[in-house]
Structure formats: structure tokens, C-alpha cells
């Protein structure tokens, strides 16, 4: 209702979501956001899941082109494999937005949850709580793009605060990730009993570290700072005496919505801007306890900036029902 062409005709416009990653809560919530926003603006959504096969993901873009969609959202992936495919889509006259992957194309806006900012805000909170001189354990697996971007923040903070000592670096993506990291963190705590801060910038890592800290009986001594959030993370942070004191996150559903809205703006001939950044929010244990927040929905209602990001908005843009 009241939407510009071609969105004025519900169901006429087809868009495709081409995913690189799909397993896990973040991706499920993201998909939820994409779906609800698509429904709100009345477009027909198709989902292509490459299940972490970057080559297949590129082919899926071609498939979407062949299906004659009007817009494509590329969710994650590798620059090198997606660049050409994205260009082909643009050449075919299709509007494209990319989320968390740089396809090096000026016609394609880049939606980002700013991993760098996630790391940065968490570390700022850590310095606020613990001063600028402490012994830290760091959980990191190189080679994973978002983790690498969060690593930048860590390197910067370390360089700026010589008092912060990186006592141990560990981490693994062996499944189940939380359990494997718990085992590693356990060994690290045993070998380095003087650690007071754990920087685990991925919630699965943080969960593992929390289990290890609990098992070692060090909940009072150690503080965990992380990135990302989910309902389960909230309850873990709120456990009595939990060492997990803060996390920084964007709402994955909101990110999904922003992607669809950016695409909708392009479909109607508008320009969402070269880069659309969904700002992250700092979530502390104290805040969760104060507000008695139990799940993501509570978090959204108590924290408006988490519920809705005021980016990629126009006056005609319908929002999903809450």
C-alpha cells in the first residue's frame, strides 16, 4: 500500500537470498529477519543454501539469474569466488546487495554488521571494568573472515595498551564448538592461573570458556567478553555468578531486515548508499539482570536500538509485525 513501483504489486517481485553459511542460531535468526521483511513488503523470496561451499554459492547466483529474479542478497562468502558472479548478476540488470562479503563492485551496496566494532566495543568495556593492565586469554581461529576482522580490534587495543598481556591464544572450530573450546580453555586456565580477562569474540567460544571457568571454580576471578548474542547466551550470562559479563551484538534478524530493505530501495530506483552499517549494541550482564531479560524478544523490547536499526529506511517502508 502506497509503495512505489514495482513493489506496489504484491508477489510480482522475486528476490533470492544466496547463503554461504546457514547452520546455527545467528543464521537462522538472520533468515527469519529476511523472511519477515520480505513478507512485509510483499516480495517472493527464494533461498539458496550453499552450505559453506563457496564455489557452489557462485553457481547459485547464476541459478538465481537464470530464474529471472529481480534482486539478490548475497549472504557471506568469499570475495574471490563471488566477485565475478555478482558482476554477472549486475550485468543481467539485477539489483544486488551483499551482506558481510566484499564483492568489490560499486553497483552493490555492502551491508555490514561491523565486526571490527563488535570487537572494539567489547574490549572498551573490558578496559572500563578491568583497567588497562591485565593478563588476558584470547580465543581466536585465524582464516575465518569475521574473526579476522574482530582480531584487528584486539591487535589495536593490545598495541595501545601495553599493560594488556596476551597470556594464551587458543581456540578451535571442532564440533561441537562450545564443548571443544571448553576443553581447551580448561587446559589454558590450568597452565595460566593468573588470567583475569577472557576475550572470546564469538559466542560459541564464550560459551566454552564459561563452562571451563565454572568447572575451574574461577567465576569470581575471570571476566569474559564476547561478541554475538542469542537466547541461550542470555541465560548463560544471567546464571548466578556468571563470569560472562558483557557481549556486543547486532540483532541478526535486524540485519536480515536491513538487507531486504536496502534491496527494496534499490528495486524502486533509490540508493541505500555504498555501505549500510548496522550498529552493534553493548549488552552487559548487569543490564540483563536489571531489566530481567530472558530472551531475544525481551532484549528487543527493552533495548529499542537492538529491536530496530534505523538504517535503510524510507517513509513508505513497511516494517515486519512485532
Amino acid at each position, binding site marked *: 500500500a502506497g509503495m512505489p513501483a514495482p513493489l506496489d504489486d504484491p508477489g510480482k517481485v522475486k528476490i533470492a537470498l544466496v547463503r554461504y553459511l*546457514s*547452520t*546455527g*542460531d545467528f543464521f*537462522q*535468526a538472520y533468515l527469519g529477519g529476511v523472511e519477515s521483511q520480505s513478507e512485509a513488503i510483499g516480495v517472493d523470496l527464494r533461498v539458496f543454501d550453499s552450505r559453506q561451499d563457496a564455489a557452489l554459492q557462485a553457481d547459485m547466483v547464476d541459478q538465481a539469474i537464470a530464474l529471472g529474479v529481480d534482486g539478490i542478497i548475497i549472504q557471506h562468502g568469499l570475495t574471490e569466488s563471488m566477485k565475478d558472479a555478482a558482476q554477472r548478476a549486475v550485468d543481467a540488470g539485477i539489483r544486488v546487495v551483499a551482506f558481510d562479503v566484499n564483492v568489490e563492485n560499486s553497483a552493490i551496496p555492502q551491508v555490514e554488521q561491523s565486526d571490527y566494532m563488535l570487537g572494539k566495543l567489547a574490549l572498551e568495556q573490558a578496559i572500563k571494568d578491568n583497567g588497562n593492565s591485565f593478563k588476558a586469554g584470547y580465543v581466536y*581461529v585465524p582464516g575465518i573472515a569475521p574473526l579476522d576482522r574482530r582480531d584487528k580490534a584486539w591487535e589495536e587495543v593490545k598495541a595501545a595498551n601495553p599493560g594488556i598481556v596476551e597470556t*594464551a*591464544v*587458543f*581456540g*578451535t572450530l*571442532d*564440533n*561441537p*564448538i*562450545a*564443548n*571443544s573450546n*571448553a*576443553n*581447551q580453555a*580448561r*587446559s*589454558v586456565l*590450568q*597452565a*595460566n*592461573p593468573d588470567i583475569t580477562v577472557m576475550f572470546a569474540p564469538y559466542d560459541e567460544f564464550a*560459551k566454552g570458556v564459561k*563452562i571451563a571457568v*565454572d*568447572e575451574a*571454580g574461577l567465576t569470581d576471578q575471570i571476566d569474559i567478553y564476547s561478541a554475538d548474542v*542469542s*537466547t*541461550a547466551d*542470555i*541465560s*548463560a550470562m544471567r546464571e548466578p555468578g556468571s563470569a560472562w559479563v558483557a557481549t556486543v551484538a547486532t540483532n541478526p534478524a535486524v540485519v536480515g531486515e536491513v538487507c531486504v530493505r536496502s534491496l527494496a530501495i534499490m528495486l524502486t530506483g533509490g540508493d541505500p548508499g555504498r555501505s549500510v552499517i548496522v550498529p552493534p549494541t553493548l549488552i552487559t550482564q548487569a543490564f540483563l539482570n536489571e531489566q530481567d531479560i*530472558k*530472551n*531475544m*524478544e*525481551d532484549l528487543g523490547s527493552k533495548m529499542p536500538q537492538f529491536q530496530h536499526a534505523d538504517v535503510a529506511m524510507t517513509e513508505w517502508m513497511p516494517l515486519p509485525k512485532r
Partner: protein
Amino acid sequence: MSNNFSIRNLSIKYGFLVLLLVLIIFFSIFASGFAGPRSAVFIFQSVAITGILALGVTCTLVVDGFDLSIGSVATSSLMMSAYMLVILEQNAFVAVVACLLMGAFVGLLNGLLIVKMKVPDLLATLGMMFLLIGLQRVPTEGRSIATGMRLPSGEVADGIFPGSFLWIGRHRFDFFLENLIPVPVIIFLVVAVLVWIFLELTRHGRLMYAIGSNERAASLAGANVNLYKILAYVISGVTASIGGILLSARLGRGDIASGNNLLLDSVAAALIGFAVLGAAKPNALGTAIGALFVGILLQGLTMMNAPYYTQDFVKGGVLVIALVFTFALTSRSRKGGH
């Protein structure tokens, strides 16, 4: 031949254990914090779940089978326990029983596919693996299960992981030191002893080994081949579901995860077991020691702050060297020719 205490025979029998000892000594010296009762307990704790799975897969190896579905049975059990507790709001006992039954049922299905439908073991359990990986995600549409989660129906799940359930994964018994030995370690040891007794000391175990060596001859000697094969897969299913329960109780939530690493690590443990005490065949004691071996290696390397990729590398390297050592010697002493 068994009375021949030559150096070669000794090294076949004890070579692997000596290697283990050398590793322990090495890490005790070079990895601060490695030596000590608490550290030993972590090692047991870190391998308890893979170890339990590995003991199950050992039973299927004994009857010359293979169970690729254990990883997915464990994650299904993880999801199922969380579903029972958080969404259906059942108590711990019901959740545990349901998971064990599920494991037994999957094992039964595997066994029937293999025995009655004559589907090759790798194939049947591979199919089951994919099936379960999918199935465990259907009820929550791929979401993890945690207290307070919003269900597809829009309701909020109010159930919790009760303390009695978490106890299984988290409680520690006093043993000389306070809060020393976690429940999963006890369960691992109990399962190991039970499987060992079953395979080595009972007639059922011996018949299973006979079936693994020559199925037809065992059948003509009166063994109920089908029953024992099914039993092996049921044991494997149940142990995998125990692993899943422990995982669930440790994590305190129903985490969407793939069990690929659980599968590979427990298969590794079971296979390393071949080399222990020169057995050159699947055996429970070897499997338990194989699991510990991997645990010690990873614990030691982590404590020495080795980057994660060196762990796989060292794991593989030590594995290959240990195995070459054991098997090359075993085979040479066994026969003169081929």
C-alpha cells in the same frame, strides 16, 4: 611364541604405552601445570565423551561392522534431551530415558538394515547419519534450544535444564581433593569397564569376535549372528546417546552442532586402540587408552600454547609414527611371508 620375551615382542606389547609415558613425562617437564591430579582429571574429562562413543564403535568393529552414525546419534540425543526438558518440560529422568531409548532404537534400525536388508554397514550407517542430522533440526527449524526461546508457534519455552540433569555433566565428586572427579569421567570409566568385561570376559563378547572373524563359521557353530550384530549396533547407539546426554548436561542447552568431529575423534580413538598392547584388533582397553592418548596430546599442546593447527599436525604425526612402529613390528613377528 607367547613365551618369547624378545625385545621385539616387548616393544610390540608395550611400545605404545611407553610412548604414552614419554609424552606424559615430556609435558610434565615442559608444560607448566600439566602434572598434577587436577590436570589428569581434565584430560579424562576432555576425552570422556569421545571415549564413550569410541567404546560403542569398538563393539561394531568387533563384529566387523562400522558405525558412521554415532556422531549424529550423539547430537540428536543432545537436541532431544534439550527438547524434552525445555519445550516439553519433562524432568531429568524422563529426558535421560528418552535419549537412551532413542539411541537404542537408532542402533536397532542400523542393525536391522544391515542384518535383514543386507545393506553394507558403512552405507546403512551413513544414510542414518544424514537422516539424523536432518531430523534433529526439524522440530526447532534449525534453532538451538534454550530456556526462554520463542517457539515457531510464537510461545515462549519455559522449561529449564533442572539441576539434577546438569548434575550429570557438571557435578564433581570429592576424591582426596575436593570437587575432583566429574560425573562424566566416572561414567566413561564405568562404560569402559563394562564394555571390557563384556568383550573379554563373557561368552557373548567372544562370540562377537568369532562373528567378526568368520561370520559363516560362527553361525555354523550355533552363534546367533543376526542377534549379536544387532546388539553391537544397539550398544553403539546407546553409548552415543549417553555421550549426547553428557554433552547436553555440560553445555546446558540444545546446541545445533554437527557431530563430525565427534565421529572422527572417536573413530580415531577406537583405531588407535588396535595398537595398544599389540592387540591388532578392536578392543575396549585399547580404545580407552587411545582416547586418553589423544586427550593427553591435546592438553599438553594447549598448555604449551601451541597454535591450534599444530595440534592436528602433531596428533597425526604421533599417530602415524606410533602405528608404524606397532604394526610393522607386529606383522613381522607374526608371519614369515605375506
